[in-house]
């Protein structure tokens, strides 16, 4: 069976390329700086379940309930990871997907006894695992630091990382589709960042609809909202999970999943039919 050997080779190759492009070191460095900040700069003294003192850079901060403070801090980290980390991950991954389609490289890959679907999914999985490893490093690292320092071990923060990985998987499917269509990392970055920018605006659709005068323009906003990934709405779900609040609606998750599945299916379909 060629399948598992080829899959592992494709994933291993993606990690090797990520190391060579300093992508992993870049992510790892940023995550480590954040963890060191939590470890050494933020000092938390807890007495009988309540905060006696919180000091950052040596300055005392107002104290509230320990659990509340930890959850707030975790939600800040999750949001940094969700938006800034996602933008970085998109920037790093776009080049690694489109590089596969370079003339002189793709022909050799296609000449091997591995199906095109397998090749693209192998590369996709490799990229996803590179980013997943870094997300888990930061989330599990900070979760441990908070847990050890405060004794608060809520699972919401760890669970929230799954949504961050999920939204990256959806954006990576879009990057793969753009890569197959145009072989351009720059176009992939531009379109994916545009989605990251436009979706928080579309999330305010009820306000926007009130401001629009014509029905067709309101329809355009609605179609865009439902068709595109709902990064902003999912960030609210992530925050709710961390803060232990009930999730209002799961629609943003499943509709985003549908978008990702369609983008990946289109990428595979186009890759299967393309001549190189």
């Amino acid at each position, binding site marked *: 069976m060629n399948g598992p050997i*080829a899959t592992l080779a494709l994933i291993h*190759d993606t990690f090797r390329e990520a190391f060579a492009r300093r992508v992993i070191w870049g992510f790892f460095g940023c995550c480590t700086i954040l963890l060191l900040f939590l470890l050494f700069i933020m000092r938390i003294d807890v007495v009988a379940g309540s905060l006696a003192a919180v000091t950052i850079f040596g300055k005392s901060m107002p104290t509230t309930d320990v659990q509340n403070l930890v959850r707030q801090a975790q939600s800040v980290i999750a949001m940094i990871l969700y938006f800034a980390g996602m933008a970085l991950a998109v920037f790093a991954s776009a080049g690694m997907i489109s590089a596969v389609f370079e003339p002189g490289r793709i022909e050799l*890959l296609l*000449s091997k006894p591995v199906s095109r679907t397998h090749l693209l999914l192998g590369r996709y999985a490799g990229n996803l695992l590179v980013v997943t490893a870094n997300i888990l490093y930061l989330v599990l690292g900070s979760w441990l630091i908070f847990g050890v320092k405060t004794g608060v071990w809520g699972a919401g923060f760890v669970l929230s990382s799954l949504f961050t990985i999920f939204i990256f998987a959806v954006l990576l499917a879009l990057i793969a589709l753009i890569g197959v269509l145009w072989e351009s990392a720059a176009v992939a970055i531009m379109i994916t960042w545009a989605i990251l920018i436009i979706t928080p605006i579309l999330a305010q659709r009820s306000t926007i609809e009130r401001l629009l005068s014509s029905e067709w323009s309101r329809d355009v906003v609605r179609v865009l909202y439902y068709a595109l990934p709902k990064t902003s709405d999912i960030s609210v779900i992530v925050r709710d999970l961390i803060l232990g609040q009930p999730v209002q609606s799961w629609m943003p998750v499943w509709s985003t999943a549908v978008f990702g599945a369609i983008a990946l299916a289109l990428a595979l379909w186009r890759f299967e039919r393309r001549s190189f």
Partner: protein
Amino acid sequence: MSDFAIETEDLTKIFQSRWPKRELKAVDAISLQVRRGVAFGLLGPNGAGKTTFVKMLLSCAHPTSGRAKIFGRDSRETGARRPVGYLPENHRFPTYMTGWGMLDFYGALSGMDAPSRHRRIPELLELTGLDERAWHLRLGKYSKGMLQRVGLAQALMHSPELLVLDEPSDGVDPVGRKHIRDVLRRMEERGVTVFLNSHLLQEVELFCSEVAIIQKGKLALTGTVEELTSGSGYRIESEHVPERLETELRSRARAVAASNGSLQLTFATREQANEAIDLLRSNQCAIESMQRTRSTLEEVFMRTVEGSK
């Protein structure tokens, strides 16, 4: 089990651009058969469609019509590519890989398990003449010649039955070319079919037993090198030919050369050559030699390409 390593049937590729609407027939209904175990050369001027033909064989490009088979299996089937080793022209091997790492990666994609790969890699790096110091060096540091060698090693990694090589000695010095030719000769002796796409006609003539010439996407000529280069005439060398007879023979010969009392006459047919010998002998002229003339592959190539213009 098919007798042919490669079979194509009316293989055609038309490139279309939507705006402005234009069509380019890169490969035009090529039907070709390459027997198992032979060294086959594919020739043609730049833009003749050779690379597109090879890409369709390996399913990198999809044919517009027609089909290609590898050892009897449709080339579009994933499994059909298992016995094929390929070295593309203008390859861009990932520069972050080492020579060893590259062979390991492409070996794994060919379905080899880790112990087999680790056994095979040093064998091949030695066979292709790569210095041991270069094995763990990044490909970005390799010279063009070293890249060709490691590329050839990559194509041989899974012990293929069919080797498809696109300009394998491109950028390699004459010593390296000889080395590559020797490696390919060894493969041929083991029964591996070698399909060589090269601009170097001398190299093809030295190595291949059969060739095909493609011109403007069409198959212009195919046959064994022996057939294609032989039979173009007969050369007779004689001495002390009387002037009257020389004038007579010059009018019949296709080509004449004279030097130091020796006359070299080339005739188009065996009959003409025999008649000339009769005349020479009846005039008591000594015949130094008689042989069939041969064309070089370059001459055959030029005639074919010029003829189909």
